[in-house]
């Protein structure tokens, strides 16, 4: 059964959480916990660690709702950024098996089966796959594999400057493509 919170925007839910509205928290959790857990699991390959990360992240969302700035980012972006941040922290604290991470990155290349049916996911997918293969690879190893630029350089046997350049240029191209799509949508 739908509740009143179910029809509120993500941003409105976060604003309600500032007033300690636990129903708003439950609605936001129900919207994004599967994506959050999927992201954490993909990065950590460990269900228990992924569960810890998602718990930490959602508690941070609850307790730091006052710091959310709707003018700067969508609530979904904010929530998932926190999940990613926590998962990276978890990876940095553990011994990373580079071979395992490389396998994970290879797996992540198969984006065809992992794209959410939503329009936004399709746009991000389109922006990522429009990049040259080497930029896609660097972004996926960094984002989903949790590797630092120097670890990516070692893994791919490249100078660190090349990896830093691929990440920066690739992300800028993605941002430009997504902004262009957004502009097309909001400006007739």
């Amino acid at each position, binding site marked *: 059964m739908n509740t009143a919170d179910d029809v509120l925007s993500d941003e409105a839910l976060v604003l309600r959480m500032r007033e300690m509205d636990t129903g708003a928290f439950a609605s936001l959790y129900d919207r994004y916990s599967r994506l959050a857990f999927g992201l954490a699991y993909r990065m950590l390959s460990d269900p228990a660690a992924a569960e810890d990360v998602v718990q930490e992240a959602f508690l941070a969302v609850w307790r730091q709702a006052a710091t959310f700035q709707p*003018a700067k980012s969508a609530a979904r972006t904010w929530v998932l950024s926190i999940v990613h941040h926590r998962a990276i922290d978890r990876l940095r604290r553990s011994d990373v098996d580079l071979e395992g991470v490389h396998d994970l990155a290879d797996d992540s290349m198969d984006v065809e089966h992992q794209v959410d049916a939503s329009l936004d996911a399709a746009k991000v997918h389109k922006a990522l796959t429009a990049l040259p293969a080497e930029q896609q690879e660097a972004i996926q190893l960094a984002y989903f594999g949790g590797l*630092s630029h120097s670890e*990516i350089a070692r893994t791919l046997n490249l100078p660190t400057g090349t990896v830093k*350049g691929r990440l920066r240029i690739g992300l*800028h191209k993605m941002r430009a493509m997504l902004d262009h799509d957004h502009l097309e949508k909001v400006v007739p």
Partner: protein
Amino acid sequence: MMHDEAAELLGAYAVGAVSPSEREQVEQHAGTCPICTEEVAELLSLRGELALLTEEREPPPALRTRLMSIVEQDRLEWQQRQAPVSIAQAARARSWWARVPRLAYGVSAAVVVAAVLLVVVLVSRNTLTITTYRGGAVAREVRGIHVAGATAAVEVRSDRATNVLLKNMPVLPPALSYELWLIPAQGAPVSLGGFEVRADHTFQRRYARDARGFAAVAVTIERAPGDWPTPTLSDLTLEVKLAV
């Protein structure tokens, strides 16, 4: 770090692919460089959007139950502590600091248990009005430092000064630093600078800053020497909510 070095790292920074020291240097530089600040903001939004490429996976149902239990406990504690202490009682007290409550942490929370406390004490001393808010740790551990026992009080004064008093604060190693923030309901947090706690694990300082209108006072544990342009949200250690 020079501009070119920092700018080269911005892509890696945006997706978390930098070392802790690089992260620190990029943040330090971006705090003084509007060009890098703008580029970072532009690229950082991709950190959430890239997550959409992940296949959804059902988390264990127990996780939702556990989280709801924790947030409900937070809410109840917040509600209980909203009741104002009587003015007479407050006036009788020789030291309001002595009344700062120790936080009770639940037994089942895996990571963090409630700590947002709010008690408003209104004390009128002639024309000076002092409103006292209380809070405490919002994490059990930050950067490996056990902070769960920390408690805080913030005295917002009508003469535009703000007193901050902290107790049970661990003394940090040289590589880390506490930093104090004023958090607005909207907009960027304002740094009040880094600080060190005394050997008896307390900190007390009067700031010539008017905290009225801000939503909260927060403490983070940052890499030394502190004084960062923006707080590292994952390192939020302690919070005192203010009435706005």
